[in-house]
């Protein structure tokens, strides 16, 4: 059987995008390994980093999921004013810059934060947030909302008729309907979060640190930045790659639909709704946990907002340029790969998830090192790296849409001889605009907030906004840092909103 139902498009854009991703993931790793001076292999500290990475990822994923279950259950059962807004808000941490959240959490749990102030009133010694619990706290802040959305989707996927049947039989809803659903949804949620936490850098950099709380990604940073020990960096990157591939293969196989999408506004009618206080307590606490740190940023950042040094504004301008460039490159690559389609493309599309952003950046520098000064191309490399790292998410948004377009209109276009550029220009681009806008928004916001490879090589003149903010925090200029955080979070959400809005503009589809 042979079926031809998809118009032909040029092969080179997909091939080019695929090659670029391969060069930036495998190629950069190769470059780092090749330039390395292979010494004594892994030091005890490196083994500690590996153990810590796995431990914190396990704890973060387990806590995120455990805390998310009651919140998701409450959101699935209760109807209240602002429910949809809250669910939308749960998607926000995905594009919230890590460094902003860290500053917000410090304002509450840090040395001079609200919590320690409160404890001081009772004469209790202040607690330190730095270390394993700080890392886990920040990871839970980011990933608990993601877990809520995953699990809520599981809850809402139980057909309303089942609840009706259970009610008429007076059967226990929990054991009959909810437990089987959780058994299907929780493992995939756990694995996705585990994977996200494995490559954590900015959180570990700010909340961890010290030999006892160092992740592999942070160890790579230290190996490159302080020791310039490329051999160790490459070795660590390989270990991280293997860890991620194993987790990613598991995660991708058990993952269902995308939690970022819409469709969570349904409330299923239930007949087992005693004790609303428990549900609303769960919702209230979760909302407080998410909103309080952001409110603190607003509170502390607003007063000095207009007095920020010009260097911060300059850094913001650079970040915006990098974000737009990265978003454009990312959606172009995603579109080229999606048009090409096929299993190979799917594999290439998820590879950046397993790559270390720092190694990608270091490798890219090594590849261009003979020709230019690293600082000169710091922003360009950051743009490339950010585009590559955002690619899996962009592809998850764009690829299914392109596949649907091929399925719906492939035959019609073929019978009309619409191939190559006509097909892309007249059919694919107009119809894929919405997911394309969403993907661009995601890529732009992720790039805007990224504090990764830029920390390795940038001097004062190449500083991005997250890096400027990090350096302000390092200098204990917390008020200015909070103002910069406010600017950063505003820009991130504005960029996302702008791109997403562009995708939705032409609504009469």
């Amino acid at each position, binding site marked *: 059987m042979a079926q*031809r139902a998809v118009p032909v498009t040029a092969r080179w854009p997909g091939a080019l995008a695929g090659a670029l991703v391969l060069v930036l993931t495998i190629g950069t790793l190769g470059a780092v390994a090749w330039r390395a001076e292979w010494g004594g292999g892994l030091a005890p500290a490196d083994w500690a980093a590996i153990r810590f990475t796995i431990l914190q990822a396990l704890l973060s994923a387990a806590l995120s999921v455990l805390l998310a279950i009651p919140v998701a259950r409450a959101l699935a059962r209760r109807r209240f004013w602002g429910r949809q807004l809250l669910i939308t808000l749960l998607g926000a941490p995905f594009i919230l810059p890590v460094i902003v959240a860290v500053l917000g959490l410090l304002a509450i749990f840090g040395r001079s934060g609200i919590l320690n102030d409160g404890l001081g009133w009772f004469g209790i010694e202040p607690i330190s947030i730095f270390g394993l619990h700080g890392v886990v706290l920040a990871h839970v802040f980011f990933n608990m909302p993601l877990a809520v959305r995953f699990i809520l989707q599981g809850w809402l996927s139980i057909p309303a008729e089942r609840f009706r049947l259970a009610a008429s039989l007076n059967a226990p809803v929990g054991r009959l309907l909810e437990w089987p659903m959780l058994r299907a949804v929780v493992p995939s949620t756990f694995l996705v979060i585990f994977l996200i936490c494995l490559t954590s850098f900015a959180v570990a950099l700010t909340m961890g640190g010290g030999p006892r709380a160092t992740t592999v990604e942070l160890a790579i940073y230290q190996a490159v930045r302080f020791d310039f020990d490329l051999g160790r960096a490459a070795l660590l990157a390989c270990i991280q790659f293997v860890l991620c591939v194993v987790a990613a293969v598991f995660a991708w196989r058990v993952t269902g639909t995308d939690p970022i999408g819409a469709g969570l506004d349904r409330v299923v009618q239930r007949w087992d709704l005693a004790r609303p206080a428990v549900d609303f307590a769960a919702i209230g606490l979760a909302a407080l946990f998410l909103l309080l740190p952001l409110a603190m940023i607003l509170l502390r950042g607003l007063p000095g907002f207009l007095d920020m040094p010009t260097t911060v504004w300059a850094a913001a301008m650079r970040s915006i340029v990098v974000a737009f460039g990265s978003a454009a490159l990312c959606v172009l690559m995603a579109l080229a790969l999606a048009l090409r389609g096929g299993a190979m493309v799917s594999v290439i599309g998820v590879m950046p998830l397993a790559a270390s952003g720092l190694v990608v950046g270091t490798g890219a520098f090594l590849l261009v090192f003979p020709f230019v000064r690293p600082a000169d191309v710091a922003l360009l490399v950051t743009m490339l790296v950010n585009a590559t790292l955002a690619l899996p998410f962009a592809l998850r948004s764009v690829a299914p849409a392109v596949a649907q377009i091929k399925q719906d209109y492939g035959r019609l276009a073929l*019978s009309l001889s619409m191939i190559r550029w006509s097909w892309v220009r007249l059919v694919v681009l107009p119809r894929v605009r919405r997911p394309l806008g969403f993907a661009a928004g995601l890529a732009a916001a992720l790039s805007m907030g990224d504090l990764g490879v830029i920390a390795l090589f940038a001097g004062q003149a190449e500083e991005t906004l997250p890096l400027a903010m990090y350096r302000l925090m390092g200098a204990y200029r917390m008020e200015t840092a909070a103002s910069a955080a406010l600017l950063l979070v505003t820009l991130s959400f504005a960029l996302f909103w702008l791109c997403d809005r562009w995708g939705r503009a032409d609504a009469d589809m």
Partner: protein
Amino acid sequence: MLTCENLLLQQGSFSLRADVRFQAGKAVALIGPSGAGKSTLLAAIAGFLTPVSGRVLWDGRDLTHAAPGDRPVSVLFQDNNLFPHLSAAQNVGLGLRPDLRLRADDQAKVAAALHDVGLDGFADRKPSALSGGQQSRVALARVLVANRPVVLLDEPFGALGPALKDEMLDLVKAKLVSAGKTVLMVTHDPADAQRMADMAALVADGTVSPPVATSDLFSNPPPALKAYLG
């Protein structure tokens, strides 16, 4: 003459044999139970399904390996016949220029075709602003401007109500059959076949029977058709 020569088609575990000739300039109804392979036959003629063996010929020219767009064939599918983001005029224009770079005389042809199907003044509307019947008319206008000798109808009017469907069939008869097109129409409704087609071919039990006069087929149905009609 449209010829299916020793055609063997396969889709998964389903297979269909066809060794039939369709006379040029006639409307032929393909009738049979659902799942019998009526749409499969059209997919092979349109070029979406490569036959396992056998050939498809038009006036002696071998089409078996031609690309769908290079065949002398226009198709109307069950659904998705229009691009929802393009206006009626643009959708029609695709029948002339697949890249939509329409010259002035192309534009005039589009307007004339829209006029022909009774859609004056609807050129700038998008499909979502048209009724189901009007959408079918736009698709038909595109078939008119494409002006290809063979037209395949894969139940494009199935979603319309009975009166609208009859209206569309009459329009097909008036605009396409009268103009000498060879029309192949899939249907599972005997009334449709009798309304529009001079000839009808039974598709059942994995084979396509040669077309015979529609009235003969229904006055003296073979066992498979009898079983289907009940």
